[in-house]
């Protein structure tokens, strides 16, 4: 029967191809892999390369900040939320809310933003630019 003949061949083929496949978790995060899938934030990363630059892309940072703002209870009207939104003029946040947003961004990217710099962040764009300039944000 033809089927019997193909089966071992198929098994050999699989055995040859499988070990070549590398689990994405063991592979260090490179820029190219980030570009392929925008939201590559693994919930669990077995080995983290502390020396390597985290290589956050502009889209990823912006996406994470927008998600955070979408979940912020003070923003009722999310239709004005985009990459250029101003916290006060577009989203209607006051200075206390802005402090909360900046603190939430701190937590999201595990960094600490000094008062002086935090006071200067008033829009999504400014926040994205700030995070991209931080080498230890991830």
């Amino acid at each position, binding site marked *: 029967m033809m089927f019997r003949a193909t089966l071992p061949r198929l098994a050999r083929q699989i055995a040859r191809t499988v070990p070549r496949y590398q689990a994405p978790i063991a592979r260090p995060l490179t820029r190219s892999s980030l570009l392929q899938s925008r939201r590559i934030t693994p919930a669990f990363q077995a080995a983290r390369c502390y020396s390597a630059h985290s290589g956050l892309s502009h889209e990823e940072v912006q996406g994470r900040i927008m998600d955070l703002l979408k979940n912020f209870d003070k923003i009722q009207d999310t239709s004005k939320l985009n990459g250029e939104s101003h916290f*006060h003029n577009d989203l209607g946040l*006051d*200075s*206390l809310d*802005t*402090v*909360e947003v900046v*603190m939430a961004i701190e*937590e999201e990217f595990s960094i600490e933003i000094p*008062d002086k710099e*935090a*006071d200067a962040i*008033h829009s999504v764009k400014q926040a994205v630019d700030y995070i991209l300039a931080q080498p230890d944000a991830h």
Partner: protein
Amino acid sequence: MPRLSGLQKDVLSFYRECLRAVRQKQSDTRENFRAFARSEFRKNIGINKKDFGTIEYLLRNGRRKLETYQDPGIRNISR
């Protein structure tokens, strides 16, 4: 947003300090502390920004409260 005065910046900086202190609390009650800090600041949102005496008094008062609630012995708070 209009430029902020030094005192306004102090208030925002103190708000930040409070929110940082909230992070030190245990995760199950953290939201209660956050809600408390939020409501304490919101209570006085209507104060005229030129009313320096009142704002300074509230800041002093707030700092004392922060010191009290920062104690790890205080595990939960209710509004």
